[in-house]
Every structure is written in structure tokens, then in C-alpha cells.
């Protein structure tokens, strides 16, 4: 029967290793400009502050910041400092690293909706960050107690900060 009728030739692990012809590890390296908005954001982190931009037309606050409002399509030049605390909108416990290697202890990560004094946001649009959550147990995740828990940024000491997102070690649970 012709090959196309069979629909392809499945290989086992062993067979696959035998037929491999070329193994290249892509050498793709880039130096990226942080740009106008992220430069200010990263400089804020170095100083222990979370900085966003504010759209005067629709009232949205962007964290991480943008120099444009994607909804109103206007330039944003108003900077605003948001609180380094907020509440957890979702959280999970990961048993794998970025390279899919098994971890001994699960790592808890979540999305934190950040507080902005005097402002409220709907659940559809809000300033929020992905980050590690500390001071929570696996059971807090499984029982969903972690949802809506109040968390606060645990900052690295100023001399260890590099001006990136890891200047915040994690968001620590202060009240479930």
C-alpha cells in the first residue's frame, strides 16, 4: 500500500533515536529594549514601588504599564503608584519547572489583583501580576482558601535588587 494510505509511519522511542539525523540547539539570542513603559516599571521595582500607567478616559490602570490605552487608543503619560498588596484571584501548585523537570516540593503561584487606593475594578479588567505566593500550603490551594486571600509583596533587600520582577521575592499571605 502506498505511504499516504497508511497515513504515516509511527516510531517507538528506540526507532526515533536511530533515525535522528541532525540535532541542532537553536542559537537564538536577543537583546531587547525594555521600552518606555517597562523602563519606569523596573526602576520602580528597584525602589520598592509598583508603578503603573493611568488612562484618564476609561479609568483603567495598567500594571505592568503601557504607554498607550489599548481600548481608547490614546497615549498614556500619567504614572501612578499602586499598593504592593492585593488579593489572589487564582492560584495553583506546580510540581514541574519551566523545563518540565519534576520538583520535590510544589511551588505555589498565582495572579494577584493589586489594590489602588480609592479605586475599584471589575473582575474583567484590573491591574494584576503573576507571581510566586509564599506562606500558603498545598491544602490552601486545594481547599480554595487561597482565593481572595490578602497578600503583600515580600521585597528583596534594596542592595540585592536588580530592577526586575524578581526584586519581589513573592507575595506573602497576610490573611486568608
Amino acid at each position, binding site marked *: 500500500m502506498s505511504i499516504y494510505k497508511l497515513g504515516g509511519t509511527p516510531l517507538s522511542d528506540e526507532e526515533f533515536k536511530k533515525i535522528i539525523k541532525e540535532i541542532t540547539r537553536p542559537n537564538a539570542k536577543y537583546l531587547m529594549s525594555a521600552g518606555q513603559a517597562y523602563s519606569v516599571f523596573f526602576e520602580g521595582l528597584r525602589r520598592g514601588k509598583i508603578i503603573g500607567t493611568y488612562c484618564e478616559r476609561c479609568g483603567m490602570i495598567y500594571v505592568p504599564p503601557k504607554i498607550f490605552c489599548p481600548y481608547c487608543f490614546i497615549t498614556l503619560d500619567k504614572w501612578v503608584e499602586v499598593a504592593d498588596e492585593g488579593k489572589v484571584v487564582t492560584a495553583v501548585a506546580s510540581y*514541574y519547572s519551566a523545563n*518540565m*523537570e519534576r520538583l520535590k516540593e510544589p511551588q505555589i503561584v498565582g495572579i494577584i489583583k493589586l489594590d489602588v487606593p480609592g479605586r475599584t475594578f471589575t473582575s474583567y479588567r484590573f491591574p494584576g501580576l503573576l507571581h510566586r505566593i509564599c506562606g500558603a500550603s498545598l491544602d490552601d490551594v486545594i481547599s480554595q482558601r487561597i482565593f481572595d486571600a490578602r497578600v503583600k509583596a515580600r521585597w528583596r533587600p534594596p542592595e540585592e535588587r536588580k530592577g526586575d520582577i*524578581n526584586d519581589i521575592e513573592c507575595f506573602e499571605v497576610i490573611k486568608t
Partner: protein
Amino acid sequence: MKTNIHVKNRVAIIGAGLTLFRRRLLETPQEMAWIASKKALEQAGMDFKDIDCVISGSAPDAFDGVHMKGEYYSEGAGGFGKLHFRVFVGGGTGVFVPIAGWWMVASGLCKKALIVAEEKMSSAADPHPQAVFRHIWDPLIEKMLGPNLIWIFALEMHRYMHKCGVSKEDIALVSVKNKANALDHPCAQAAAKISVEDVLKSEVLVYPVNRLDISPVSDGAAALVMVSEDVARRYTDNPIWVAGIGFNLDSYSWTNRELAYPLYLKKAADMAYKMAGIENPMKQIDVAEPYDPFDYKELHHMEGLGLAPRCKAAELTKEGVTQRDGDLPINPSGGLLGVGNPIAAAGLMKVAEIFWQLRGEAGRRQVKKPVYTGLAQAWGDLMQVGTVIILRR
């Protein structure tokens, strides 16, 4: 966007073909594209020489390790010397390829178009194909936290469970159903008779996601033949018409929005329904293939598509509504969970399944009730793309 009354040329699908979906295939991307294309052309009663345009899709170049991958596989899909371009909307690509094919034919620019999707994930062999997903994040912020792909879907799944009061048992039912459906699919990679218990006991990857909640890594290709109305009439008595197309993309800032409900998908579906003249999808769609790389996504997508009321898809699943003999069969092919997930090819496999269902050619997978209108959908990027196509007999 105007409704279909302004569209002069109707577009038909007259053939579909798939390779096997497997963890590793011997064939190169070009060869896989050729096999699927050849099969689709055979069903249509055509050959490569009859085709005037090729529209293709494939997910990240990093899987194949080939930059400008569309140029590379184009030859296998019969693109050499012809019009060919490659569309790309992440995981939503598979359903997007026939969407782009639709306007290439509806505009009159193409008469006989080959629609091809291929994915060779086994080439990204070391450490694991999933590692490719390290590079999908905002490189300056999220990537610095060392995320893996399953994080974001687990975050969405858990938010959905919390907001809608859906349990892991409810969700596991989707995996059980789809893997069982795939037992009847000749190309399937991950067909199995399993229980809810098996899903819950499989390895926890990122709580709440267990291994059996996820579709596998696959090699595979899929193809359709899409033609203008006059051509369709010449080649078949049984053309399947494209009744509606829709696509939508939300912001890349996925940590700034509600994850429990896919608003972008609702908008994509509304675009397609408007074009197809569908006002009540729960009644007017007879069979659907929503995207199911994870079991919760089937439920999430049914709600975004308006095929279930918000937070109610799990209930419909429990009641058996979504089984092949139910009132609204969902993923009768076995979906990505059962047939496999060669990303773009998996999305196009869903369109092929609706095509065969509407023609009554799905064999043992044929749903029980008579079907006239079907829908296929895919999803992707940072949980922000919805692509929808509606076919009609």
C-alpha cells in the same frame, strides 16, 4: 463586518484528509503535509495539479526547529509555484486556516484551495517539546519567573472551578468521554477506556491539572479541499458549505482580566453566528468540536460559544447531553484528548470531523441524531484567541 447577504460567492469543502496522530512519526513536516493533502485531494477527486492556492498553518517554528517554517513545508503541501501563505494564531491556528481559506475563495481569487496544517513536535526532543513554551511569555516580566505552560492553564482552570463551583470529578468526565470517543478514530493516539478515578489518580502536574486532564504531544497533519460553488457542483453532490467564520483576540495582558469566562470566544462566536444567521446556538448547532487540549477547556469553550449557559457545561456533561447519542454531541471525534494534539493539525482535524459528520461519513463516530449544522473551534496564545467556523450541509 457585514452579514452573509453581502457575500456573493459561497465556499464549499469537498474533501478532508489526516495523517496518523502519533508521538513520533518518521515523516518530515513536508511529507506529513503531503500525505494529508493527498488524502484530502483523493476524497475530492482532485490532484495537486488542480489546485490554484494553498493556505497553511502551523504552530511555533521552535517545535520543528525551522525558521520561516511555512517556506519549508510549502513544497510538501503543493505550494511550489503557486499562491501560498501561512497563517498563525497560536493554538487557534488549525481552525483559522480554513477561515483564511474562506475569504481567499469567497473573494474569487482562488477557485480550488488546499487547506493544510502540520505539526512536528517530536523534533523538539531535548529536554521536552514543552520547553519550547518557555519562550511564549512576556520575555521581560513573566519569563523571569520561570513559568511552564501548564501554569497558565492551571490558573485558568482553577479560577473557572472556583467561580463556577465545578469539581475535578466533573471536569474529568470530559477526558473520559473524549478518550472513549477516540477509540473509533483510525488516526487516534490517546484513545482509551478510562474512568474518572483514573484521571484523578494520574500524576499531578500543576494542581489542579493531572496528567490525564491533558492531551498528548503529537506529530501529525490535516488537510481540506475548499472550493468555489461552481467547482463544488462539478465535483460532488454532497458539498459542505462554510456558513460562518469568526475570530477574536484579547489583550496580551492575561493577568489583568477575568479568566473564568472567555469573552474573546463569545465575540468570535457572535461574529460567526451573525454571518450564519444563527440566533440560538444551543438549538441551531447540531454537533460541535470545541477545542479540548485540557478537559476543562471543553466546558469553558461550550460556555463561550453559547452552547451551554454560563457555568452549566459540567451539568450538561454529567447528564450525557454531550455524548455521541446525546442532544448536543460534543467532540465526537475524540478531540485533542483522544485523537492527539499536533497543535495546528489538531484544530483542522476538528473541522474535518464536522465535515465528515455532516456528510454522514464519520463511520462508527457518526452521531445518532441527524445533523445539518456543525461548529469547530480552536483557542490559543496567552488564553486570548478564539477561532470559530460553522459548516452546513
